[in-house]
């Protein structure tokens, strides 16, 4: 009987367990989780913070589901892999034998070295425990300072605002999420945040977190201002949790390096999800994603291969639908570039592929409060961002992912003041009629 050990119980780990069970009904599957909360929806934390769902709702699997899967679970931390002897060493010194091992340890919030960062009242949003802490503080606090960028920073900003906390949002630069959004898009988000009562402080950096009896009492900025607050949230990006691989001599870069079968430099050790740095054929580079969909697909592919059914993973154009200042936003393919001073690397719900500058020209249009920008390549759409009305979300996902030839509308899309949304909608209706699926 083959022994499978999966380190990490996020989307990748669970998808791998399901794939293994599908191909190996007898195999022994052990899921190891450092987090006592086990498998829950990390993206769902945003809705838990705003009070739209309860904590209980975050768990997609019941005990019965785990029994059906036939997987054992262990709440422990793995510290090293002895690849030669096929043993996984745990923090209590015990060793677990494996035949195939998957590292799906995800990513963790990057830290800052600001004085005072260790104080009670300084939070991040990595996991459920963090979300509970933020909610607890939000019930007592009157004002908060949020530092950072990307989706996570806004999840915290909106969660706190929803609970009546006055939020000061610090941006190092002149605009929000500058390496994914263009200036108009950043302004849309910022405008909506301001309407919600959030005070945005541009070109503002945290110098020190001020203390009163061991707790956060305020902050001092680098330009000398002081703001009183009871909570400081840091969301400056995430880093792949690759320590286990590094301690075990596996090849790593920004994440764990894997081939198209999610195989690491050791043939019996695999990596999937946020921790895996996967080769992207479109850019010719090995890139990181921090997205649920690719994590699940990678976990599935790795699980199949581990169970003896070699299954390659081919990176698709990254795709996310998120809420930015309560505005539903679809982001797909390559749409950004440059750098964002508010984050150290990748953020949750992000993909490095979004910033692989394509050989393309942007076409955009605004309709009511909605905004659409598409990146037009030689014959295809290589990326798109859609804010507000999501009618075109699915068509754009399909057109970009399937690299649909848009030659019939190519020239018209690039004309000044082109009705981009209408052109794409008409093209989609016509194309779908011919390729019904």
């Amino acid at each position, binding site marked *: 009987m083959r022994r499978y050990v999966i380190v990490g119980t996020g989307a990748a780990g669970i998808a791998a367990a399901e794939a293994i069970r599908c191909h190996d009904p007898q195999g022994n599957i052990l899921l190891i989780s450092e987090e006592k909360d086990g498998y829950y*929806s990390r993206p*769902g934390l945003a*809705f838990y913070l705003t009070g*739209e*769902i*309860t904590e209980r*709702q975050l768990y997609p699997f019941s005990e019965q589901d785990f029994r059906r899967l036939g997987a054992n679970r262990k709440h422990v931390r793995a510290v090293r892999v002895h690849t030669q002897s096929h043993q996984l060493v745990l923090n209590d010194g015990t060793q677990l034998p494996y035949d195939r091992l998957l590292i799906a340890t995800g990513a963790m919030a990057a830290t800052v070295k600001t004085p005072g960062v260790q104080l009670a009242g300084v939070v991040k949003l990595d996991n459920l425990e963090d979300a509970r802490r933020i909610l607890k503080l939000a019930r007592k606090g009157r004002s908060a300072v949020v530092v950072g960028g990307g989706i996570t920073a806004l999840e915290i900003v909106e969660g706190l605002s929803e609970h009546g906390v006055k939020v000061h949002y610090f941006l190092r630069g002149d605009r929000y999420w500058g390496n994914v959004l263009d200036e108009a898009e950043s302004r849309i988000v910022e405008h909506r945040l301001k309407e919600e009562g959030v005070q945005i402080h541009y070109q503002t950096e945290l110098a020190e977190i001020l203390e009163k009896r061991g707790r956060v009492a305020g902050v001092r900025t680098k330009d000398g201002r002081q703001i009183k607050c009871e909570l400081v949230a840091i969301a400056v990006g995430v880093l792949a949790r690759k320590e286990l691989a590094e301690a075990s001599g596996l090849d790593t870069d920004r994440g764990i390096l894997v081939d198209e079968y999610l195989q690491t430099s050791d043939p019996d050790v695999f990596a999937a999800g946020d921790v895996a740095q996967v080769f992207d054929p479109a850019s010719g580079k090995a890139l990181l994603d921090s997205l649920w969909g690719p994590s699940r697909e990678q976990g599935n592919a790795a699980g199949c291969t581990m169970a003896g059914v070699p299954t390659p993973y081919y990176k698709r154009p990254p795709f996310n*639908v998120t*809420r930015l200042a309560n505005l539903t936003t679809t982001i797909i393919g390559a749409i950004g570039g440059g750098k964002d001073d508010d984050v150290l690397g990748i953020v949750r719900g992000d993909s490095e592929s979004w910033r692989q500058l394509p050989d393309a020209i942007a076409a955009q249009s605004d309709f009511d409060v909605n905004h659409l920008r598409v990146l037009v390549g030689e014959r295809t759409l290589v990326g798109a961002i859609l804010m507000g009305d999501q009618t075109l979300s*699915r068509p754009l996902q399909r057109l970009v992912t399937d690299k649909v030839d848009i030659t019939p509308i190519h020239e018209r899309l690039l004309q000044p003041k082109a009705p981009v949304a209408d052109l794409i909608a008409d093209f989609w209706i016509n194309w779908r009629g011919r390729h019904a699926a």
Partner: protein
Amino acid sequence: MDLKSLLKQESTRRQALVTGYVVPESFRCVQCGICSFYCPINIDIRRHAWLGEPIKDSHCLTCGECVTRCPRGALRFERTNLFEPVK
């Protein structure tokens, strides 16, 4: 519940059953559970979304609450094939 509202509910359900069912797109779903949370009759829509299976539960009212609430557009209505038996 009075008779009138019961009849009304019945007619809504009948109407819904011949109009369509809810179809998930797994790739868009992040298992946040909003769909299941707001389902008035507690169908585990999230599970269907994970498995990529249409919600063909005969109790589904196709009220559209899950479709509207899903923050990622992972759910949509699709016309029912009238020749396919309802579960």
